[in-house]
């Protein structure tokens, strides 16, 4: 079993696998997002307090979940690439950075759109918002470092060290920001407080979350193929691919 997985650490094997998997993930993402959006925009009831604005949450919460998830994937892939010299893992880390940054930006933007009618302001220096903003800074730093180092192999390895430092710092930043914000602002607004949300809202939310995951998988696979083609452009299998072979 494990040996069959090892096989795909080789770039050309992974390339073929990625080609086969992308339509499945892409199809799943399209289907899940369509069903989830229909559920979120039509079938889910408006919130008794938040009214129709609650529908923003169906995009906002999955995006916020993904923002952290992708950073963990990025750091784990980077460290795998660094320690075991796996080129595919490097490609995954590099491919994930812009996607994670986009999810983070989406979470911030939708949160801001939701905050205006709910809290009466686009932005509050609340602990959650602030740590999300810092997460965006960490992504941007990673992307800037990738842009600054021309050699992609070295860029991925340097990025792995940066992502590992960031990963150690994320919980510290999160809790210190939480501590700071409660110290200065008193009680902050909590979403989804004590009572569990009703199934009519939870189900579309979970479908949307799965849709986001599938979308990430599909786009990451496509981006990884580009990364691999670029970094392996001198190897035989890419030349063969370019000359029309399968």
């Amino acid at each position: 079993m494990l040996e069959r997985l090892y096989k795909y650490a080789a770039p050309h094997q992974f390339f073929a696998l990625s080609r086969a998997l992308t339509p499945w993930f892409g199809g799943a993402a399209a289907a899940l997002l369509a069903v989830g959006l229909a559920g979120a925009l039509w079938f889910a009831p408006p919130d008794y307090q938040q009214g129709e604005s609650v529908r923003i949450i169906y995009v906002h919460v999955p995006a916020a979940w993904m923002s952290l998830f992708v950073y963990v994937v990025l750091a784990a892939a980077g460290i795998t690439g660094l320690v075991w010299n796996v080129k595919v893992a490097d490609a995954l880390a590099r491919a994930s950075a812009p996607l994670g940054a986009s999810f983070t930006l989406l979470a911030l933007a939708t949160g801001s759109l939701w905050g205006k009618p709910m809290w009466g302001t686009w932005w509050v220096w609340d602990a959650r918002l602030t740590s999300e903003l810092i997460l965006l800074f960490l992504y941007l730093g990673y992307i800037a470092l990738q842009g600054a180092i021309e050699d992609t192999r070295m860029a991925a390895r340097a990025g792995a060290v940066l992502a590992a430092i960031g990963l150690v710092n994320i919980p510290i930043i999160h809790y210190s920001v939480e501590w700071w914000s409660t110290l200065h602002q008193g009680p902050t607004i909590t979403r989804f407080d004590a009572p569990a949300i009703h199934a009519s809202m939870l189900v579309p939310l979970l479908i949307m979350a799965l849709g986001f995951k599938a979308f990430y998988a599909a786009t990451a696979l496509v981006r990884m193929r580009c990364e691999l083609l670029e970094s392996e452009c001198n190897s035989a299998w890419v030349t063969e691919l370019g000359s029309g072979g399968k």
Partner: protein
Amino acid sequence: MSAARACKAVLRRDLLLGLRHRAELANPLVFYVIVASLFPFAVGSDTPTLAIIGPSVIWVCALLAATLSLDRIFHADFDDGTLEQLILARQPLVLLVGAKTLAHWLLCGVPLVPAALALAVLYQLPATALWPMLSTLLLGTPVFSLTGTALAALTVGLSGSGVLLALLILPLYIPVLIFSVAAVGNAMNGLSIAGELYFLSALLVLALTVMPFAAAAALRIRLG
């Protein structure tokens, strides 16, 4: 040569080089004082307002000054090949990098402390704020030097590395900033600052255990 003697030699060399280029050392400090004294022009000379924003301004400007001084840790050594020799040396790179970090803290971190105290007087902070300012700076500046060494190692030799380094490092300084300014604020309100000092010490211990290894790994990657 034993590792301890090698570290001492690196430390001595860096201190000596630093003291021979006094202007380079002074520039971040002058920058610090200038930037911090810009705020009263923008905010107004109203004393109570200055006392409120004082600790935050002094700390944020200290972050910027510390960031400015990071570039020099490896820059000259990278240019003249010393860095390669350090990597090739038989002694563990982690310890040699640690000696360089210590030298950077002594040359660029410690001088921030008296400068900050002078600024505290300019901002007319109460005397109760001085001790927390001193203690948080003494705990915070080594964290800057340690984290800064690791990230300076990552960006060594890159064109435009100064701004890039600032982008990478400023978000990581946030916890230190939060606890330090909170400590000063607490002291000014007559509250205990023990909690914040413990947190800062914990951050320092964490940085001490992790960052030299990250810096050594980063140097190997960049020069490997």
